[in-house]
């Protein structure tokens, strides 16, 4: 959990969220949320659907009014400040392109609303079109653009008004995997260029770890942990964070990382019996996919080549697994059940693809 830092001068923070709660009727979307986003940084809100990440983003933007608590942008309390005067750039998952306007007019919208003079608008918009690599497409309509191009246009539109913060709600969620990867690398580079305090929402841990300096893991309306990708991976605050950031096995009621999973040829007091399902050799390392006996839970271990050669495993044979002595483990309380496959399709979990095993 993030500490509330009342003593710090809030001017030094890009965004600060203090004790925010948000209820929708009986449903508590946000519970006691405290968050500091350093000025000019890039932060990811990561969590399964329904974890409150989008609600938090919309609350910062002013699109939702918190039931209690405060939001500061650049040290200024945003309470009672309507969306349009907050000067936030907001990018929607489904682009929210103005369909009846050209790319140029879409990007120029915020400037026109602010009654800037024409030559100023033209200069700024052309600059942004180049920045988001849509050069030559100024006269196109959104319907004539690809998904990735539309999202870059939406980003340019948000940046046109020189927002104090940039908020992106699952910005790449509607794009296919390849475009998504390119676009996020591109967004990171863009951020290094424009340095605007940025928060983006994602349910994809890889996306968050790839480009964010700070990751906020959310679950059930609460912030579970805030930290860098390394912090979250090496020192997860609880089993939810451990499971959501990085890969885990559940071994005898404990969560353990695949690279901390040890395979033994013989039974030991703390081991779990498994049947070897598949051995995958990947150059210098390898992956062993197993099913626990008798309840057929999928478990996998990441081993070096020499370990693999020493063990000499064959599919169908019996082995025993346990966490390595110095392994990071967390109690498995079932907090992760159901969050994986449904929400994070990019997390690799081995699936059993072989013939039906005799019961």
């Amino acid at each position, binding site marked *: 959990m993030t500490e509330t830092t009342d003593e710090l001068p809030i001017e030094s923070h890009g965004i600060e969220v203090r004790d925010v709660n948000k209820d929708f009727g009986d449903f508590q979307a946000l519970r006691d949320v405290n968050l500091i986003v350093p000025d000019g940084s890039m932060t990811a809100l990561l969590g399964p659907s329904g974890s409150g990440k989008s609600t938090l983003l919309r609350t910062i933007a002013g699109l939702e009014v918190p039931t209690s608590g405060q939001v500061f942008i650049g040290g200024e309390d945003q309470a009672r400040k309507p*969306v*349009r005067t907050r000067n936030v750039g907001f990018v929607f998952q489904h682009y929210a*392109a*103005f*369909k009846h306007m050209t790319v140029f007019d879409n990007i120029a919208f915020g400037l026109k609303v602010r009654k800037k003079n024409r030559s100023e608008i033209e200069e700024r918009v052309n600059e942004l079109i180049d920045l988001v690599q849509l050069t030559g497409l100024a006269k196109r309509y959104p319907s004539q653009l690809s998904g990735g191009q539309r999202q870059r246009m939406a980003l340019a*539109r948000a940046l*046109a008004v020189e927002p104090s913060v940039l908020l992106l709600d699952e910005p790449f969620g509607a794009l296919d995997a390849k475009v998504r990867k390119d676009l996020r690398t591109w967004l990171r580079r863009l951020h290094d260029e424009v340095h605007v305090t940025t928060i983006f929402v994602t349910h994809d841990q890889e996306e968050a770890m790839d480009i964010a300096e700070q990751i906020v893991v959310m679950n059930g309306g609460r912030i579970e942990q805030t930290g860098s990708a390394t912090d979250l991976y090496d020192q997860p605050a609880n089993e939810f964070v451990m499971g959501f950031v990085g890969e885990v096995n559940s071994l005898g009621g404990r969560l353990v990382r695949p690279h901390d999973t040890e395979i033994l040829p013989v039974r030991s007091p703390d081991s779990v019996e498994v049947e070897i399902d598949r051995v995958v050799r990947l150059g210098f390392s390898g992956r062993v996919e197993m099913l626990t006996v008798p309840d057929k839970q999928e478990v996998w271990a990441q081993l070096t080549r020499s370990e693999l050669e020493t063990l000499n495993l064959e599919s169908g044979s019996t082995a025993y697994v346990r966490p390595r002595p110095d392994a990071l483990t967390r109690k498995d309380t079932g907090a992760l059940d159901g969050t994986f496959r449904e929400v994070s399709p990019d997390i690799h979990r081995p699936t059993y693809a072989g013939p039906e095993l005799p019961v």
Partner: protein
Amino acid sequence: MTGNGRLSRYGLRFVALSYLSALLLLPIGVALVKTFDQGVGEVITQITKPDAIHALKMSLLTVIIAVPLNTVFGIAAAHVVVRTDFRFKWAINALIDMPFAVSPVVIGLALILVYGTGGWFGADLAAMGIQVIFSTPGIVMAVIFVSLPFVAREVIPVMQEIGTDQETAAETLGAGPWQTFRRITLPAIRWGVTYGIVLTTARALGEFGAVTVVSGNISGETQTLPLYVSQQFETFNSVGAYSASLVLAILALGTLLSMNLLRRREETND
């Protein structure tokens, strides 16, 4: 299978076309031929009669007043129904449809009950020198009443379809409610509005039942074109009736065509 499919396809087309021909194309075609029975000169004589011209002016006046009012109301009502949420929304939704459900004659009678000489406000209005029933205000009110739902009914589904994303985006970019409406919402719903206006215009031009009841049907004074047509027909001046009908048809067609032209021009611009 394919033979059967073809048969049913052509069969369906035949039924649809025959239905349209028998009910629409044939009568209108015959009316058109009948209009020019005695030559173009006679048609011109008929439609330039003072009573005919007065009826035309009356009809146009009702359109000029009723259409803008119902357009503004329709867009506002659509906004309320689609974008807001409150307990008695279903009631508003049902009320918008009422003019569709109630017979125009009943609407006319209801207006007399409220605004006629013996009605609730009739005496007070008469004291102020305002005559509603058997006069222009009554006709305009009747026309507004019967043509009220069209714009709202056309705009509601379009507004639901476009969602709130674009409006929210405009808001985050600093646009106020009016700017958002003018620059984002209105362009997005424009074809719904246009089609609603065309339907409202057609209905306002053609309204007969409610107007008959409230206008008193005084030729040269409170007669709209449909009433004039009916009166000419009843007094055995069939050429006069058909000629005036032709004017009505041209007005309606003109509205439809100008919408289509507008739309086509915009599409080639896109």
